[in-house]
Each structure stands twice: as C-alpha cells, then as structure tokens.
C-alpha cells in the first residue's frame, strides 16, 4: 500500500472574526461630497405641471362640443344624435 501524505485541516480552529485585522478608526476629516438629489427629482419644477406625451388624451366628445357648440343630445328612444336648432 503506497504512502499517502496527510493533508492539512481545512480550518485552523480559530474563528475568522478573531483572525481579521482590527477595524480602522474613522479619520477626523472625511472627504466632502456634494449633495446630489435623486435623478427623479433632478429637474422637476415644483410649481410647473407635468405632461406626458404618451398618456395625453383628448376625448372626441370634448372636440364635438367645442366645434359644434353644444353637447351630444341623444334621443332616448332611437339612440340617435338629435339635431339642434342652435346655429353653429
């Protein structure tokens, strides 16, 4: 039977927190870093409303009212749009 040398043990038996170097004490004067607000509020004006090109919607009923001067008048029996006597 050939000779097999014995390997070292995986641990030395000492806990790792005892083998770590002692923590350095913080220096008196740390490097100053300018404050930067998060990107979401970087350019947002507080008193200016926001507008989304993606969510901007204009309902056709609003356009009809603006173009023809009145709201849609739907007949309850026929369900058709009623003509108005008001000049447009």
């Amino acid at each position, binding site marked *: 039977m050939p000779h097999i040398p014995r390997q070292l043990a995986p641990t030395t038996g000492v806990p790792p927190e005892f083998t770590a170097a002692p923590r350095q004490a913080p220096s008196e004067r740390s490097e100053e870093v300018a404050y930067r607000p998060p990107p979401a509020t*970087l*350019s947002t*004006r507080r008193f200016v409303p926001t*507008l989304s*090109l993606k969510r*901007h919607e*204009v309902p*056709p009923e609003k*356009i009809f009212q603006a*173009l023809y001067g009145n709201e849609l008048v739907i007949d309850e029996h026929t369900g058709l749009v009623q003509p108005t006597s008001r000049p447009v």
Partner: protein
Amino acid sequence: MSIPDWCNPQAVPSKETCQQVRVSSLCERGWQPLLILGYLRDHLARHFHDASQVEADDLRQHLWRDHERTGILIESVYKWVDGLTERRPALLIAQNAHRSIRLVLGDLAGRTGNGDEEYTELWVGSHTVFCLHEKGAAASMLANEVRQELGQFAPKIRRYLGLHRFAVTEVGAVSEVEEAKHHFAVPITIGWAFQQNWVIRCEALPMRRFSVEFILD
C-alpha cells in the same frame, strides 16, 4: 421635374409647383386622420421654412430645413425618440381618438337616380401639436405662433380641404415633459370633422324569396 406631393412630408415644393398637386393613393380614398396629420406637418414645415412668415422675432433663428440639422424639428410623435430634439425646439404632432357621429337613421342619406342607396357619416376627432422647447417662455411663444398660424388660416383650410370643421380648440398650459425632463411643452389641440359619403351599388335586383317547404311538399 417631378411634381412633389403635399402628402409627402419630405418635400417642400417651390412656388411654381404649389398649384399643381398630385393626389396620392391615400388621398383618393377620402379623408382619414393620417392625412390630416400629414397636412398639419406639411403646413407647419412650410410656415417655419421661410423667416418672413414667422411673426415672432425670437423664433426666426429656428427655421425648418429638410435635413437633420434643421433649426426646428417638425415630426409626428411616432418618430420621436429620446435625444432626437437635442437642444432644438420641436413640434410633435400626435393623433387623438376620433368618433363617428350618426347623422341620420341607419346612416342612410337617400337614394341616387339609379336607385342605389347613399350613406353618410360624420367623423369628429383631433390632433395635438406639442410645442417643445428648453425654456418655458420660449415654448409658450412657439405655441402662440402655431396657434395663430393654424387658427387664423382655419377658415381657408376648412374650405380648401373640404372638411366639415377645422379649428384650434384648446391651448394647454406650459408643462414639463415627463419623458424629457429638460423640455417644456404646450399642447395645442386642433379639432376637425369630416363627412364621409358612400354609395352601395347593387349589381342586380334582389332575388324573390320562395318557400322551400312548398317545394318539398
């Protein structure tokens, strides 16, 4: 010399050829929102193409040119991507929803001399022109220029294009664009309405009905 088409957003015809307009296949099918979007883009590009037509002095340095280094970007909102406008002002045109308005019962307007049924329908919708600029005041000035141009020529536009209605219905507040925080925008809503008529031609008289049960019996 080729005659440019006003439906083509890339071409700005010269004054000699403005009177000769070749109607494309899209225009042959009657009005649709895409054509009105193309017209608005074409109209605004012509307006900002010549400095003498721009009323605001501060905007005359931003002239539209048919290349990438144009002074003002005038495009549909579909072509806009982040960084496209850079530091330039821009006019982005978006198409809103449109709705059918029923004018008569069953859309049946009447019958032609041949006895064919004629139908009619009214479509109401709008487009929004977003006036973008880095400065809020400049965005407001740009919006005022667009509002005056389209609003004052609205009666002529409606007449020559054959639209039922065409008007600037609303100008929104100066707002910050959520998609581009360094730009301000003013939305201008342009409402329109066009009537669509069509005729259903019957190739033959309707067949007379007969009872199948009578034959089987």
